[in-house]
């Protein structure tokens, strides 16, 4: 088994969770790596959607470094603009949203707007919703990708940017006017989470080798639902690592950043 870093584990797991022949709306950051890995391996017929307007490309010219990158258009089938991409989600053509964020809470709501509780004078102003808020609202299911850190898995978000299950009320999304059914998976370097059908709370599904459910709970600022059986996360194969490092992101734009713990 190869050595791997947190980002590689996330990208590999993200890829593994994507089913072939599904439509995936690709958010910026590690989702771009994960879908490219999926397209090159077990999901050659996966259908990608990028928000600047590209639908169903084959990423032969290389990794897009931005969701607005012209490389997202390589061999696309349909290429209009922002409106068309998001309207595909509203209309029900998109299976998965694949997004990142700065903070997440137990109901899968995500913050990517700011840190500090004052909208007028935030401690740190983050980029903002971008496409994520709309993707989480209207793609049928949402996959969220994030490094597992206590400052990210929080009880209360500083700002709710992308809707999850809200406060967990069964009609929260209905009253919000959104069309998708909500968060499906949260992928991190150390665990994979799902959501409980009843309570809508985050459930631990898989933990990385060498870690126990309690180790995961320690890194999370809210109480996880932990079922009796938790699977072991699959580790990236040597071939997967080779692909990630040599073919997909040889410059290490996404995979060689430092993880702050």
């Amino acid at each position, binding site marked *: 088994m190869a050595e791997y870093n947190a980002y590689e584990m996330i990208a590999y797991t993200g890829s593994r969770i994507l089913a072939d022949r599904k439509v995936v709306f690709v958010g910026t*950051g590690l989702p771009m790596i994960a879908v490219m890995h999926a397209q090159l391996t077990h999901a050659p017929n996966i259908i990608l959607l990028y928000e600047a307007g590209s639908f169903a490309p084959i990423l032969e010219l290389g990794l897009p470094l931005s969701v607005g990158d012209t490389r997202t258009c390589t061999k696309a089938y349909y290429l209009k603009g922002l409106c068309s991409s998001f309207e595909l989600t*509203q209309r029900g053509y998109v299976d998965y949203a694949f997004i990142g964020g700065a903070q997440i809470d137990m109901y899968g709501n995500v913050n990517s707007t700011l840190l500090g509780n004052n909208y007028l004078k935030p401690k740190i102003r983050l980029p903002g919703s971008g496409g994520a808020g*709309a993707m989480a609202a209207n793609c049928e299911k949402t996959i969220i990708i994030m490094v597992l850190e206590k400052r990210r898995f929080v009880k209360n978000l500083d700002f709710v940017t992308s809707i999850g299950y*809200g406060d967990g009320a069964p009609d929260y999304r209905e009253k919000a006017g959104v069309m998708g059914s909500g968060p499906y998976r949260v992928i991190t370097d150390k665990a994979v989470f799902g959501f409980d059908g009843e309570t809508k709370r985050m459930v631990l599904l898989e933990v990385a080798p060498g870690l126990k459910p309690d180790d995961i709970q320690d890194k999370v600022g809210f109480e996880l639902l932990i079922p009796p059986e938790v699977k072991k996360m699959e580790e990236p194969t040597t071939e997967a690592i080779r692909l990630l490092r040599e073919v997909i992101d040889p410059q290490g734009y996404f995979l060689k950043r430092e993880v702050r713990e």
Partner: protein
Amino acid sequence: MTREVSSSIEKLSKIEYKERAFKWWGPSPDEARKIQVSKPKELKDKRTTLKDAVKNLITNGQNLGLGGFVNTRVPIAIVHEIIRQGARDLTLSLQSNSMACELLAGAMILDKTRVSIKRVELAWWAYEVIGLAPLLRYLAANGMVELDDYTNYGMAARFKAGAMGVPFMPTRDHGGTDMELVNRGTMIECPFTGRNVYLVPACHPDVGLIHVQAADKYGNCRIFGPLCTCPEIAMASTYTIVTAEEIIPEESLRTYPNLTEIPFVAVDAVVTQPYGAYPGATYGFYWFGMEHMKMFRGICEEFRVTGRKDKLKEYYDRYIYGCETFDHFLAKISSKELREVKELDGNRPIIL
């Protein structure tokens, strides 16, 4: 006023914000219509220089609509010229942008009597893989700009409503998030479904800033690769400046009218400007210039951390204030770099 409803976001939200009575941050739909009606719509040669286009169309206090998306077809050449000529109390409207916004912010930080941003209606402002936007962080943390947050679709739908001549667009997002509380959209109960639906107000910039692959002298534009919301911004704006990599003959547009993405009536000034989006990308012409962007971002981040403006000032003096035109800026970029970004585009097929 239509009876307003809301989602359950208030049960969840922790954000402190100020209720704002609704007002337009640029021309209202009725004002935008009136301006459009009063403009002559004839076919006339609109080619000009960027210097003249900016001199004639940009004034203090305007709402500027920034075309492109993140690094794609961003109106960098137009922004350079606006900075050179100066414009205060601007409102910026955009979806997702990087350097075009940061350049204006940097000019403000250097001399706010020359360039200043008063408000920004946006979805996203950063550099993706290169990092957060240091100058947005600086301006926001110091309360120096008023922000109004939407999703990318929200801003796209706002430009689309403006382009369509309707006062708002219904969307299926924003509801149930803090954007519902802080931005200028509003939730209503749909009269047909009985479900909540979120309305975002039309956005009509005073001036749309658009870079395209090709245009004819009248302003008919062809766009390849992601259209972003450039057609919508051009149609929504009361005036539009277009820079084009190439001017192509009218006959070509008349042969394939289906390929025209912006019609001449929506364009007021046409400027030939090769590499007009650099260090952004233009599909079919060049990929984006990662190194130049990183360099500029590094300078901005250094200012944010240290508060020292010297390197920032150097950048502007060298690349903007020290240039007569955008071609002079390009002359300061190595020809190797310009050749490389061209090669990295991979020669995508476009129809000119």
